């Protein structure tokens, strides 16, 4: 690849700055396609080894062979940010991608959810993840592949089960329950006290040990790492490493529509305003842009999924047009996808974009449902609740160390996939080292307990 695009990087950065984008410096690097593919698989440039990534890697290879997906760039927020561009990108693609990356950099620096999570994880997730990978490599050398893999099987199976409302470095539960409030000093108590001074105050403070966990705990990675009866410290470290990476992934996941939309809006706009880009490169870049934000594949009439680039892009265009850039920036800073879709995806826009709800049977029979804006919002957001995972929480640890997990089907609407859940229990049981019980509901809606072993 020629390095021509680097000549434009600085000019695009200046233009972006003038247009009101505020971002940390970004380090651009061109990498081979194979490496791009790995970033897509691992989510981070250097990440812990695990066979499940190998499976995703093969799927990714197959997809690429079928020409389905091509990655132009991946950007990691931070100060400085890291942007990797595919070495096979042409000049036009790289100009577009540079502008796109700056949109992301602006978003990740200013969006509250990103700021909060980066405040926890620090602005150097790429380096942290590489460090985790090294730690785990050392653990493999020290304890053997089998043992480390067993821990990773469990930790990565629970990777979505974190609580981002808690701190990354979270304290253990207080050991004792908070004392009951002193009783009101009413007439009766005064009189009672005057009868026998020794009886009034018991004198002995009876501290009550708090149950573990004191409330249903959905931060399973943290809970297991802290309360597993016989876990070794290197095993806890692996759990906490996976948890830290999940803290990094959460905002990426929870703001995907906004974030991709924002970056697409800005690459389109910066490109329009960049008069220094040669005509041909501009045309190529615009064509590339329209491929990226295309809602429906070229050979199809309808798509049974929503392209987040297209949806986000269209929404931001509408918002900027109607409410102005300042309002748009406020929304960008304060919302995540839930607020963004619910507040700003209007009936009018949904119609314009041809969004619809459908109901699909297992045999592939699909029926388009009635218009209903609220239901449409929830259909778009459905896969995003709770980091995309069922609501499973730790509810009790019995005296013999048995861990009780409870699936809250009232939130999810139906029970768990029993076979998969059983396998997850097997994974976790190997690090918890005591029995685990999971309750959920079966097809008929009655409670069901899975146990391991």
């Amino acid at each position: 690849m020629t390095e021509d695009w680097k000549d434009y990087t600085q000019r695009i950065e200046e233009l972006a700055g003038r247009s009101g984008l505020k971002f940390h410096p970004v380090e651009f690097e061109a990498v081979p396609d194979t490496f791009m593919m790995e970033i897509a698989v691992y989510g981070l440039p250097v990440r812990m080894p695990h066979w499940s990534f190998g499976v995703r890697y093969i799927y990714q290879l197959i997809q690429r062979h079928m020409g389905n997906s091509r990655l132009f760039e991946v950007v990691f927020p931070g100060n400085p940010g890291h942007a990797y561009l595919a070495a096979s990108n042409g000049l036009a693609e790289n100009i577009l991608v540079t502008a796109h990356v700056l949109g992301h950099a602006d978003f990740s620096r200013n969006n509250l959810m990103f700021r909060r999570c980066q405040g926890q994880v620090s602005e150097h997730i790429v380096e942290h993840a590489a460090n985790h990978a090294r730690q785990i490599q050392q653990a493999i050398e020290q304890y053997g592949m089998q043992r480390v893999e067993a821990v990773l099987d469990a930790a990565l199976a629970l990777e979505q089960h974190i609580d981002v409302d808690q701190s990354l470095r979270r304290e253990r539960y207080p050991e004792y329950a908070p004392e009951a409030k002193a009783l009101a000093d009413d007439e009766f108590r005064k009189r009672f006290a005057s009868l026998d001074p020794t009886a009034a105050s018991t004198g002995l403070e009876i501290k009550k040990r708090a149950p573990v966990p004191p409330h249903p705990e959905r931060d399973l990675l943290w809970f297991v790492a802290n309360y597993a009866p016989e876990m070794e410290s290197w095993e806890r470290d692996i759990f906490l490493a996976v948890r830290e990476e999940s803290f990094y992934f959460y905002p990426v996941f929870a703001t995907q529509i906004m974030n991709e939309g924002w970056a697409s809006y800005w690459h389109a706009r910066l490109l329009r305003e960049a008069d220094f880009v040669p005509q041909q490169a501009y045309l190529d870049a615009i064509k590339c842009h329209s491929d990226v934000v295309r809602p429906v594949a070229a050979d199809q009439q309808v798509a049974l999924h929503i392209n987040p680039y297209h949806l986000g892009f269209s929404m931001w265009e509408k918002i900027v047009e109607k409410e102005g850039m300042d309002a748009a920036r406020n929304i960008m800073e304060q919302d995540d996808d839930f607020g963004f879709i619910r507040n700003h995806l209007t009936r009018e826009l949904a119609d314009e974009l041809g969004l619809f709800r459908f109901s699909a049977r297992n045999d592939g029979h699909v029926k388009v449902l009635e218009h209903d804006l609220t239901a449409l919002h929830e259909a778009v957001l459905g896969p995003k609740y709770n980091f995309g995972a069922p609501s499973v929480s730790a509810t009790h640890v019995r005296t013999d160390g048995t861990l009780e997990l409870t699936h809250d089907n009232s939130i999810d609407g139906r029970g768990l996939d029993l076979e998969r859940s059983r396998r997850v229990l097997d994974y976790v049981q190997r690090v918890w080292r005591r029995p685990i019980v999971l309750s959920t509901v079966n097809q008929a809606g009655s409670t069901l307990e899975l146990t391991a072993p």
Partner: protein
Amino acid sequence: MPESSDKAGSGANKWYDLFSRGARDWLRHDEKVRESVRKHLPQIISGADVINEGARTVRVPVRMLEHYHFRLRRPEEQQGAGQGKAKPGDVFSDPSKQRGPGEKGAGGQDEGEVQLLLEFKIDDIVDWLWEEMQLPNLKARVGPSEDTDWVREGWDRRGARSRLDRRRSFKEMVKRRGNPGATPTFIDEDLRYRQLARRRQPAVHAVVFFMLDVSGSMSDRDRKLAKTFFFWVVQGLRREYRSLETVFVAHTTEAWEFTEPEFFQVSGTGGTVSSTGFNKVREIIDARYNPGRCNIYLFYASDGDNSVSDSAEARESLSSITGDACFTGYVEVSSGLSRQLATETGRLFAELSSAGCAAGSYALNDFDDVWGAVRHFFSAEAKALEAPG
């Protein structure tokens, strides 16, 4: 991982091409699949269609491993959001679900399924099985032989390019120039080529006779059972003998010698006179093989219903063979009927075995029994070999 620190270096990203994390983790996945296949190997292999002429591998279809997460049960009907030209009430079918069963391979996000076809070398499988089942390695009877083979012997300044010994040539160059630090420059005198020489080697010969009863009472399934068993026996013996000859004999009331592919296809009608088969084997041994120089094995598969009038002759003929053979084995294939060797031929082998001959028998009722049979014979055979005589 040191490469993470290299990354900061601008343009110093050559290492990206050096290795692939994805491939590393994929290999680990592959290894896990192989491990689990290996654990269930006998079940998987015994059903597989192994006997293709010349095929040195067995293909086993396996699914990719799934790393499990908590997931909700698949509902009867799933709601979602889509985009495109569609009105409420429209009904269509999801094109992504209309692939034919043969067109798997399109990787989806979650439900897409990729089938792997793992190829195992038959030699590897046999090695694993021998390890797993702790089958004994047989000692071969060694005879004088005229086998010749090429072996490496010495170096020369001239030779074929492919036999250039780089290490040796480098040494010569260093010797000549005396300064190992300088840029290497070779001249023709430095080059050394490996030479080959002919050597006589004592060879180990073995011949296995496979004798199959193809009378009317043997069903296709019986034949397939016998065939699978025979196949693995050949593999086991090939571990021990570099040149293994096989002879295939089938009999009803007559006996014929067949080539390997024909052998497994033949089916006959009529009664069972096993002495005809034994006589045929005897004939072939006498004509072609010298028992003093050659290890002889006989495996006989039948449903055991030898005609009663043949007993005496069969016994006589068989004993003459066991005298010369390293081992004689009898598998009784009788799917459905488990008579456990209480047949005419079964009794014949039991007699031989109790008389101290190297002979064994095993009832083969199902494909799962194949491994039991292989194990049985190879341990029996080892015992027979250990016994003096």
